[in-house]
């Protein structure tokens, strides 16, 4: 039984762990904080063992809980607001990709999150709205503004479309 639970957890980590880590890293800009948030997310999963209707529901649950954990961390006065890339492996990124990443992380948090979910995770606007508990219009506006900010900063850097 214990082995079964371990296997389930391992499966879920392999399925969602890297994705959650990416999102948390983008939201928190710190490897250590991102790892903490991912770990807390799986702790919540272990603790509550929620029942999921389907795989999409499961994925949405993990994303939502990870988002909450990131918010919890950011609310804490002990959260050091910083970009701490110590220990993050950036060896595979090209210089251009690093530039894009740096500009993405300069965006305000809510734009980063929406852009990440839309472009990286491939969620639709309606799904992001449901996931984050925001109105669709709000997500659209945030996506638009985030995109504009990113476009402007990338143009400044000379990164063309």
């Amino acid at each position, binding site marked *: 039984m214990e082995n079964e639970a*371990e296997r389930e*957890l*391992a499966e879920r*980590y*392999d399925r969602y*762990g*890297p994705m959650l*880590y*990416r999102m948390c*890293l983008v939201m928190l800009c710190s490897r250590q904080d*991102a*790892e903490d948030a*991912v*770990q*807390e997310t*799986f*702790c*919540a999963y*272990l*603790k*509550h*063992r*929620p*029942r999921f209707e389907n795989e999409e529901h499961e994925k949405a649950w993990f994303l*939502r809980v990870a988002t909450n954990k990131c*918010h919890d961390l*950011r609310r804490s*006065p*002990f959260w*050091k*607001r*910083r*970009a701490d890339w110590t220990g*993050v*492996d*950036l060896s*595979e*990124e090209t210089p*251009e*990709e690093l530039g*894009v*990443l740096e500009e*993405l992380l300069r965006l*305000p*948090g*809510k734009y980063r999150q929406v852009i990440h979910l839309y*472009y*990286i995770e491939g969620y639709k606007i309606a799904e992001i709205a449901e996931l*984050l*508990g*925001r*109105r669709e*219009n*709000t997500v659209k*506006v945030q996506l638009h503004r985030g995109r504009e*900010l990113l476009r402007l900063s*990338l143009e400044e850097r000379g*990164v*063309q*479309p």
Partner: protein
Amino acid sequence: MKTREELLRGAVGKLKPESSLRDRVLSGGRRSRVRPAVRRFSLAGAACLCVLAVAILLPELLRVAVVRPQGPDAQAAGTPSLSIAGSGESESMDVESPVSSLLAAVINGSGDVLAVSAVQVDRQEQVVRSACVDPSCVVEDASSGTAVPLLDLFREGGAQGLETAVEELLGVELDGALVFTNGDLASCIDAGGGVEVFLLPQEAEMINSYSGSSLQSGKQRLTGEEALCFLQMDDGDMSNLTGRGGRQSALAESLWMQADPDLLETLLLESTLFSSLPELPDAGGIAEVLSFSFESVSLPENWDAVDSVTTDENGARLILLAPTALREQIRSFFRDDGGEQAASDSLPPYYAGGTSTLYDTVNQAMIDLCGLVEQSESETVIPAVHLFTEEPADQEGGVEVVCAGYAARFALQWETGVCGFQMEGGQLVLQETQAAAARLLLTQQEDGAWELAAVEETIYGGDPAFSDADGLLGLSGGDEVLAAEIAAWDGGDGTDILAQTLDESIRSYWEQNDLEPFVSWYLGPYLLPIPLRDEVSFEELWDLPEGTQLSLSPSCPISSALFPVENTTELLDLIRVGTVNVSEGWMPYSDSGVPVIFLTDESGTLLHWLAFPGEDGAFWLDGVRLCQMDGASWELFRAAALSA
């Protein structure tokens, strides 16, 4: 050549966690990093099981029905366990709102209130907020007109009386009340194997003297009886961390952190406390709510909400309150979240009533012409109309106006992190606009009010606002200059007539409806949020209450939230003795060219970050402290920073 999107996907897609993270997760371990051990956050900060139970039950309760107690007979003196069931008729509330609130209280056998909390469950934001109120707080009893402490109210007015008093005191609407006895609470805690909290030395001493235990200070697991002592003891400490309210809050958080869904389900099913509910949630439902974030605060949160502290004839402490400040605190707490939450916030319909009745009528006509309507109570439609001409139309006092403008639908949202720095506050966020230009005929009534008599011509705008040259010429009666003026009305850069008119309309609406306490900004068609409050000079910073929203630079309205001051001298000391390294850099919360300077210790760990507007003096802030420097200190510091 790769597109920006491909670069973005490539960059983020290659971020991979360390392999050790997988091991940590699979081993089920908690966070390895130790965070500073301040009670409210690290410990358990923790309040009462009833808060937990209410939080779990609340969604179920409201989905099915809330049975309100009717009248003071809803509770009988000496009833050992009081439920919310009343003997009178029941009122069904099929509430689908994502935000619901309830009162939770713990009483002793004499009917004294030991703990009381307003609990808000926000299913949309997936957060449970518990505001524990010190039962020593004094409220005015509406029926007798006398001032009584909360701790007496259950005995005198029953659950209904307590609920009404808390509603009045905090200025919130509660959907019902649940009251537990201290015995039930203790049993529940014991059944869960006790509860872990952090004891201060004097707390351990007091619990030991009451219950005969031999507890040491520090992290301890308390039995139900000990937890009651912890909850009840009144050492006169008014701190919301180490005082009575802080203990309630700490216990609630602790119980939340330790809650087990299966155990809770068993407890709820076997308990008679909730027998009035037609359905109880199963472990799945409980687990769902337990996956929400939990936030707890004890009120009064600071001394702004306290007029004075006194004692009654028996020597018991009484806290006389400043209700306005207290309501501000609860309002801030219940709305405080990073996401958009609306539901319980409502905005009044547009009414500016500032300029003239004619202008008001034109404004209303523009809203009607544009056809925008509020989608919820947290929205409002605000017009921004410019009158280009206003001429007598006939012999009977009619007036013809040529106007252009638009109606803009705004939603009230609670925002953080906008425009660089951490910002928290209510914000009007633009959702939708419709532009129109029109020639209107208005007539004046006997009472002086203006009425829209006819819409003679209308053209609707797009982007750019009005490109229909023939339509504009017709609207302006062949006046080419006027047509050109209307066409240039929307320059789109935030400096045009539209921007000024919209700004005036919003400010007028904001002032007329007294929205200052909970709306700080608006986000119109332009990128940056516009602060509604005036700029604050550096000299005034010290006198501002914590949490005040500030704009640091007139040319670029950057927002910031000021955080609680824990030790205002520490950073200045660090700077003075020069034990920190200084480096400049960027961070995700800075943009618009404001320099950010990091202070690190010798090992490179970041201690603080600072942001400067850079001109007339210096202002710095970081995650936990606020301070300011004089110009000379700033010059010295700046030189050190630049040479580092």
